[in-house]
């Protein structure tokens, strides 16, 4: 019975090139990013009426640029490792937490300097920003989860969380091009919340979709 299975499996053997897993994830990410270009334009600009205005002259744009990209990169590093049965790493999540603390620290300082005025925290769009970031990150999240289905994560939840972090970071990065907010505290709270929501969504979906 088991011998039969062995015969069947060895007849079915196809070579697996080195780093096949990484390449699979990179391909999915590239596809998701490619879809995000028109998707973000259609959803954010045409549908929700938020014009594509990268405020490249402003320092805050670049802070958001780096901050969000950092989460995407952390997720990017974590996804392949957490997609393996023997993969067990925590540093990406610890690092994300530290990044959040640093941002909150700087945000609080800037907020204090401006005498705790509410607009520094709430801006104009605090109530939509955390929802639009997951929405923007959706194509990447879907592509990643789809690509990760035939993998074997040690914990489906953690793998989903890492995918969500990558998608959330990327979604927030993309969203920054459509966002005119310039408060440091605004970014530290609402951007982080948007990324965290995407990560949580990834964890919940991963728990179901990435079981094996």
């Amino acid at each position, binding site marked *: *019975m*088991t*011998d039969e*299975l*062995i*015969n069947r*499996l*060895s*007849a*079915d*053997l*196809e*070579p*697996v090139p*080195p780093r*096949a*897993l990484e390449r*699979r994830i990179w391909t999915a990410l590239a596809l998701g990013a490619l879809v995000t270009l028109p998707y973000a334009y259609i959803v954010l600009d045409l549908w929700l009426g938020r014009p594509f205005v990268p405020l490249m002259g402003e320092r805050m744009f670049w802070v958001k640029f780096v901050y969000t990209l950092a989460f995407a990169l952390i997720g990017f590093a974590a996804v392949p490792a957490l*997609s*393996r*049965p*023997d993969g067990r790493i925590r540093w990406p999540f610890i690092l994300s937490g530290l990044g959040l603390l640093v941002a909150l620290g700087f945000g609080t300082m800037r907020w204090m300097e401006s005498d705790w005025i509410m607009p520094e925290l709430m801006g104009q769009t605090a109530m939509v920003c955390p929802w639009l970031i997951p929405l923007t990150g959706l194509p990447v999240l879907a592509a990643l989860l789809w690509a990760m289905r*035939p*993998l*074997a994560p*040690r914990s489906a939840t953690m793998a989903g969380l890492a995918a969500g972090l990558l998608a959330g970071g990327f979604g927030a990065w993309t969203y920054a091009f459509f966002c005119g907010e310039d408060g440091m505290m605004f970014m530290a709270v609402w951007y982080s919340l948007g990324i965290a929501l995407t990560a949580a969504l990834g964890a919940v979906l991963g728990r179901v979709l990435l079981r*094996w």
Partner: protein
Amino acid sequence: MKPDSTEQRLRGLMLASLDGDAAAYRVLLADLTRYLRPWFARRLSAAHVSHAEDLVQETLLAVHSRRMTYDRSRPFTAWLHAIAHHKFVDHVRRHAIRPTVPLDDDAPIFASDDSAHAADRRDVEAVLATVPDRTADLIRQTKLEGASVAEAAARHGMTETAAKVSIHRGLKSLMGRFAGGGK
């Protein structure tokens, strides 16, 4: 016991398999089967030990379909253990939610697994063969099958006293022969 050589051997086979060497793959899977069967059997409770073969097959299937997740630069046995462990935990969870031991009222609650004692049983039969048939029967019925002396005596159409004497003599002769007494 040289775990390093096992790791090296299996890892070599795995790397060859990933490059498409079907012969190496066949050897690898056969090796894994031999290695995993006792690994699972040791971890399963007596009631589930028959699932070991299923778990071996599930693990082989996972090794096959998810071999992409093996990182060539890392130890193979660690990867394999992670998969086997995953399958084992999965099995335990499934059976914790839906236990498959039927609790029929008429089933003996403390039923023991006889197969484990099969060897002992054979020894007993060999020993009993050295006393007269009727005595052997009486001993078997009263001492092994739990019949009372009266029942056993009735089955052989003898009085209870005669049965008792017969059993006593039989056991005594057996003890003299097998209990190590130099009488």
